[in-house]
């Protein structure tokens, strides 16, 4: 190739769009729910499972999954755990202050594809509920398009549970099977105790009809897969979201590689059949 033949683009994919913090809701001791609006007034146009790169000017960028459904038109919601430099700086941002947003990036749970018409089983571990919530809201907003809906949620302790109002809403809904568990109970906990895989055999999952959308730490996937295989769920029917150090979001910087796959463009949502031979995946 010569310079003359090079493909050009006027679009700078590294340039964030200015955005404003509309509101902050404290969810747990370490997690805050941000409602953010692009200053352009445009919608983000994301799909459930996709992520954005959030800039705190002067501090840096971090990849954060979108927690709200695409149906929500007045901005997006992001759950941010205080974990590193950028997320700590985000926590310190006040309502009305500015952030930058790039994206949405990556693949999504196929709510508009193979999930339609099927039973949906959401399996969320810890903060994995944050990205899945976008898909859960979408499915519940378009309830008639899906079969039986099951939400399984596991956290380490009751104090880490997110979106308490919504959990109780889902547990009351007749058209949702909601089950949750904690690894370690506290004095007030009356529910299930134990790892999330314990919920799978009793959730009434019809392997032939179900599509599983899972999000949680790598260790959770290892055990969840064993339990799903035990009830004959096929790899092709399982979608997982993998987190890596997605720095650029556009498949250039090299940080998020999972062997030959880029978490930022080939993922973060992968069909389990596509990552079976990928040693670094799970």
């Amino acid at each position, binding site marked *: 190739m010569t*310079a*003359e033949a090079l493909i050009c683009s006027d679009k700078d994919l590294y*340039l964030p769009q200015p955005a404003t913090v509309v509101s902050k809701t404290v969810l747990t001791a370490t997690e805050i729910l941000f409602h953010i609006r692009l200053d352009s007034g445009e919608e983000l146009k994301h799909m459930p499972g996709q992520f954005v790169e959030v800039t705190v000017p002067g501090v840096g960028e971090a990849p954060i999954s979108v927690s709200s459904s695409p149906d929500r038109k007045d901005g997006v919601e992001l759950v941010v755990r205080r974990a590193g430099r950028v997320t700590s700086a985000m926590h310190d941002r006040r309502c009305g202050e500015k952030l930058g947003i790039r994206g949405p990036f990556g693949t999504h749970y196929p709510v508009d594809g193979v999930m339609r018409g099927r039973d949906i089983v959401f399996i969320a571990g810890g903060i994995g509920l944050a990205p899945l919530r976008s898909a859960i809201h979408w499915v519940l907003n378009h309830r008639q398009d899906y079969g039986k809906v099951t939400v399984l949620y596991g956290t380490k302790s009751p104090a880490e549970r997110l979106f308490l109002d919504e959990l109780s809403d889902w547990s009351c809904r007749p058209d949702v099977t909601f089950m949750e568990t904690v690894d370690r109970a506290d004095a007030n906990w009356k529910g299930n105790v134990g790892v999330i895989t314990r919920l799978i055999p009793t959730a009434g999952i019809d392997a032939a009809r179900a599509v599983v959308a899972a999000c949680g730490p790598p260790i959770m996937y290892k055990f969840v897969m064993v339990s799903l295989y035990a009830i004959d769920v096929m790899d092709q029917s399982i979608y997982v979201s993998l987190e*890596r150090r997605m720095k650029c979001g556009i498949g250039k910087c090299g940080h998020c*590689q999972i062997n030959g796959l880029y978490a930022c463009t080939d993922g973060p949502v992968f069909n389990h059949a596509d990552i079976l031979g990928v040693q670094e995946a799970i």
Partner: protein
Amino acid sequence: MSPKKLSLPTMNDWVAAVIRERRVFGPQAKGDRFAYDLLGCPADLRLDHDVTILPPKKYLMPPREVLLTFTRSGKFESVMEGEPLVLFGVHPYDVAAIAQMDRYFTQDNVDSHYVARRKKVTIVACDVQSASENVFAACMGTATVPDGFDVLLTLVGETYVVESRTAAGDALLALAGGLEDADAVSLGRREQLWMDAQKLLRRQNLRCQVEDLPGLLDRSYEHAAWRQKSELCFSCGSCVMVCPSCFCFDVQDEVGWDLVSGERRRQWDGCLLTQFARVAGDHNFRKLREERYRHRFYRKGKYLHDRCGFVACVGCGRCTTACTSEIASPVALYNSLLEDQ
């Protein structure tokens, strides 16, 4: 434009004319080695260099470059850096690496910062006159290159054969004044030199074809060589920093003195460095040296091949030279994988 002939004095005058017109960067002596730098006069240009310490990549993807400016109040503005320049005397393997970079940064998502810089660069390639001790370009198919340059220079005896391939190359050659067409004898000697380059640039000998490498890696993920060799790795990243076909980068914000505005910059990063795959919460997806060492070879020998269609190694041998522990040589590594096939 048909190949022309340039006598050594004419060559000198031409380089002087190019320097007067443009900013020219070329290989120059640096101690007992060579490095690309701004060229002040033709005498400093060392077209007889064996290899430069760093590849000319640094002019297309600088060690640090500004992507945008920001204010803390949320204004972001793109910065497209880059100035017209001529890279003079680029060896074929480095031309091949630039072609890989062109592909990498324009495939799927176009990196407008790279393209802005690249568009302003004119490449005067030069066939290799002396081979470095660790070169194996001939094994990688890059001892000579058929394209990817604006002008190609080849020293045949006391004369250069010079061939322009692009309008930018034509414009540069016009500065040399009226040139004679290269005669059949010179062109024949150039052909011979290209054939000789296949032997000259094989100081290290890879015992398979470059096309075999992705498959070889496919079969070698659990090979003992990864751990054996990586036990000596300092995770210093020298091998990736000197590589013409390593493109990974990190991005950092820097706040200015006013504490209000600042710049977002990207800088070279490398998968051999400890923190490369580390995320917040101190989880490192490639915690072990062995994993990082292996990843480098897979990224270059297989993953980029599967994605972009090239093996991201051009056989320059810079990593071999740079590695204190003597474990970076791709030839030694691939050959040891081949032994146990």
